[in-house]
């Protein structure tokens, strides 16, 4: 008891009457962060780790979760690739909408813009300006990411202090036009303030901002123009505010579109004229397809590439992703595989193949794929022997090499007599469900077609004509296994080609190129043709169409594709040459889903333009729905040769659907219902 009293007494003694006014040491203050370079590094690192970059940590269906789980892209109904899972669906919303987290990042940027001036004296002026420029660049990036999702968004351009009046806290959506103007203004401010080269790795610079500005303005110009091509004009005013939150007014779209295309053109030209960047051609040799192919593989992992403008880097073991773990061929499956299987429709865009009159790949001797006999090849690679080197660098063909192994892809073995007639008399959309396992030659006697439901012991064995072999290839396709090759083709781009590289979740550290010079050239070319369509001949003295032609040829030369011999025309056909080149060059780079969106070519009425050029939508659509095809290699034991069948996706058939309302994502319902000023999209 005495002891307790003594403690109480002691406690009283140690009470002081002086107020504590020293800032607590465990709280980081603005002073700590903004008054010195290492503090700024931390501030920037925080902002950059929250940037809406679509790389190996972004999946379109899920939105920005900043994890790399199941990372696959090009599977959003773009036609580039297919995947077995529900994530393979059109880009009509994101499970985690890019809304509230966007405003957190905008706040960080605004805070820097408002508070850095107090510490101006701590830095040399160019550095001070650069830091400020970074803040504008971050804000531009966020507004751009939001604008292409939602149209007009709340333009919060200052730090809103809390608590405050309800009226100060609530910011309504601005018009789509004002939003794009803000994006342009923020990029301009960043371009004006930032250094011409990044002060540190990971920082941005003036040309990064210019390159992204050209991409953003191309989006804005396209939206302003192509909203007009959509049934009922895609625009409307918000119910609560009356603001034109999506689209442009009838009397302003034309001018706005031209203005944005001009901005896109000028920004891209400034990057080009700087002569700081060039297309990657370290191993490129004229007239050498093998060298051109190898060159285009290397360019995606060579961090010293002069084509790289902005790169997200990874380092094992601290900052990694799992791209190889999800998208490698089946034989490398750890723990998954075949997440991005390129389609035949994608392949048909490239040079070096024979086609039927309707533009589809020729697989038989007849005039269509239901006529004549299958064309026979000694090895599957023979079909691809003249393929454009760029395609071979992007896609693994059946029988091609990857990671030091031959990638065996075989749909089945045919033991019937030769010449071989096409398996089906109808390959239309309506009969996409008619698959090989439903053929009489497979299920009835005499059995002449062998297919495998799964790998390993589930492989059907074929003993015929002296052959003793598995029906399907090592990578499938297996008709009951969505982790095998779905389309007969595999992705090569981005995959680590090093045979020694271990595959696994969190084991990959290839960089992701967010912006490269190739895109800048294509941005310039597209803006140039659009301006020419709008009646301009020149913006800065040089002829727009000549420049666009030259840019396309530069890309094509490096790709090993056929060069344009005539100057592009000022028509939609000329424009489509640039669009198609863009679809080919920038495939599997998380860009195409946005291009289809801004061209407004994904809904049924506009879908003839899905492939960048006019292609009859009814070949692969049924109203709002559409599907893609694969290219399936078979082996004939009688002929000891291979043949190919072009069929709608055989394994895990995906049907995509897209309607006009999807061109603008819905505003998250909870944001609309809790606010007096936030409008839902007027067309929803």
């Amino acid at each position, binding site marked *: 008891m005495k002891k307790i009293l003594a403690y109480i007494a002691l406690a009283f003694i140690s009470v002081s009457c002086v107020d504590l006014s020293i800032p607590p040491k465990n709280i980081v203050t603005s002073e700590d962060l903004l008054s010195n370079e290492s503090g700024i590094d931390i501030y920037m690192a925080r902002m950059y780790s929250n940037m809406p970059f679509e790389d190996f940590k972004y999946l379109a269906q899920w939105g920005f979760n900043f994890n790399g789980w199941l990372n696959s892209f090009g599977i959003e109904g773009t036609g580039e690739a297919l995947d077995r899972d529900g994530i393979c669906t059109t880009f009509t919303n994101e499970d985690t909408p890019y809304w509230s987290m966007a405003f957190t990042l905008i706040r960080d940027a605004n805070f820097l813009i408002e508070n850095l001036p107090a510490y101006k004296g701590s830095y040399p002026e160019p550095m001070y300006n650069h830091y400020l420029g970074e803040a504008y660049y971050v804000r531009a990036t966020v507004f751009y990411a939001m604008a292409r999702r939602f149209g007009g968004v709340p333009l919060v351009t200052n730090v809103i202090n809390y608590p405050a009046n309800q009226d100060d806290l609530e910011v309504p959506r601005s018009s789509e036009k004002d939003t794009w103007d803000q994006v342009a203004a923020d990029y301009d401010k960043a371009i004006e303030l930032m250094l011409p080269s990044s002060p540190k790795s990971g920082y941005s610079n003036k040309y990064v901002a210019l390159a992204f500005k050209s991409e953003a303005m191309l989006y804005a110009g396209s939206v302003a123009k192509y909203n007009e091509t*959509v*049934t*009922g*004009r*895609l*625009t*409307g*005013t918000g*119910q*609560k505010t*009356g603001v034109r939150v*999506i*689209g442009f*007014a*009838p009397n302003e779209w034309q001018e706005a579109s031209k203005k944005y295309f001009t901005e896109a053109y000028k920004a891209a030209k400034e990057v080009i004229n700087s002569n700081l960047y060039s297309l990657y051609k370290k191993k490129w040799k004229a007239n050498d397809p093998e060298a051109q192919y190898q060159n285009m593989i290397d360019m995606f992992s060579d961090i010293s590439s002069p084509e790289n403008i902005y790169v997200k880097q990874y380092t094992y073991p601290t900052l990694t992703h799992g791209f190889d773990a999800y998208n490698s061929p089946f034989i490398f499956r750890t723990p998954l595989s075949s997440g991005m299987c390129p389609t035949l429709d994608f392949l048909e865009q490239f040079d070096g193949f024979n086609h039927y009159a309707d533009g589809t790949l020729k697989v038989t001797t007849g005039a269509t794929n239901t006529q004549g006999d299958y064309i026979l090849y000694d090895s599957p690679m023979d079909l691809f022997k003249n393929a454009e080197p760029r395609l071979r660098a992007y896609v693994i063909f059946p029988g091609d090499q990857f990671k030091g192994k031959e990638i065996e892809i075989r749909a089945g073995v045919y033991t019937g007599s030769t010449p071989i007639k096409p398996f089906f*008399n*109808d390959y*239309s*959309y*309506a*009969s996409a*469900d008619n698959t090989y396992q439903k053929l009489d030659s497979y299920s009835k006697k005499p059995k002449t077609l062998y297919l495998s439901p799964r790998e390993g012991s589930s492989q059907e064995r074929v003993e015929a004509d002296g052959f003793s072999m598995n029906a399907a290839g090592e990578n499938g396709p297996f008709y009951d296994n969505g982790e095998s090759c779905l389309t007969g083709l595999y992705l090569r781009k981005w995959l680590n080609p090093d045979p020694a590289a271990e595959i696994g979740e969190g084991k990959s550290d290839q960089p992701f190129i967010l912006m490269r010079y190739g895109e800048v050239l294509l941005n310039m070319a597209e803006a140039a043709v659009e301006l020419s369509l709008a009646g301009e001949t020149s913006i800065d003295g040089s002829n727009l169409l000549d420049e666009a032609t030259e840019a396309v040829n530069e890309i094509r030369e490096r790709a090993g594709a056929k060069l344009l011999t005539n100057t592009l025309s000022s028509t939609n056909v000329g424009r489509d040459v640039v669009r198609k080149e863009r679809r080919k060059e920038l495939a599997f780079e998380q860009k195409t889903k946005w291009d289809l969106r801004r061209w407004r070519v994904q*809904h049924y009425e506009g879908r003839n333009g899905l492939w960048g050029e006019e292609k009859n939508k009814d070949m692969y659509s*049924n*109203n709002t*729905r559409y599907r893609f095809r694969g290219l399936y290699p078979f082996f004939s034991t009688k002929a000891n040769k291979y043949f190919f069948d072009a069929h709608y996706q055989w394994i895990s058939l995906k049907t995509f659907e897209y*309607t*006009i*309302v999807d061109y603008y994502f819905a505003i998250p*319902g909870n944001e*609309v*219902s*809790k*606010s*007096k000023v936030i409008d839902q999209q*007027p*067309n*929803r």
Partner: protein
Amino acid sequence: MQNMKKTIFGTMLFSCLLFTSCDVFELDNYEEPKETIIGEVVDSKTGERILTDQGSEGIRVRMTELSWGDNVEHNPDFYCKSDGSFQNTKIFKGTYNIRIDGPFVPIVREDERGVPIANDTKTLDIEGTINVKFEVQPFLKVEFVDYPTVSNGQIAARVKVTRGISNDEFREKIEPMGNYNSSFTNVTDIQLFVSYSSSVGYRARDERWSNKIEYVGSEFENLLGKEITIKSIKGQTIPSGKHVFVRAAARINYDTPAGSGTRRWNYSEPMEVIIP
């Protein structure tokens, strides 16, 4: 040992209670949603139901509960049944605004600046069972002329499409909304939906057999009121002995609600066809 188990058990039980809020023991006393609305959409001229398809391409019913104050979000949308009627038996008691959108002249019309021109939505106190009837002006009327024929597993149907509202009437209603275009009234396509399901329509169509005919510009104008033959997809044989259901549909080049890009079809009655 036995004691220890008891102690552990006791502690766990106690901590369970510790984290329990008292609400757990209270019954949710909010009245369950048990009010009913029964509605139908009919042609204001003939009184016939507007036939549709149950899905987001059909007639959308949007209810908004107004007693929450100014800033209200509408309830989740639902859609008319294919016969043009709708029913919801799980509604909370309250005051609702009911709006429908479908292949008819929009009942809510505003000009370019959002100034109301017409508003034929209904605002009702819903308690018990409430009946509601919307009288609208459908764009088109679609009918089968006779019983479809079948040959070699392919269905051939004779269809007649007439206007539910004349072009002049349409223009009079729609033009004040701004950006009027004379192409709005063009009939763009006729569909023949085929399905094993009796609720055949766009949603339940079988893609193997359903077919369409598309028309460019105003080329359909001469075909209005005439018999048009539309067949299921050639080469796709419908198995013999099966019963399938067919419906015809047609639409004009005008989306409802404006800006949604959704051009909704007017439908015929479904018909059952036996494949010989």
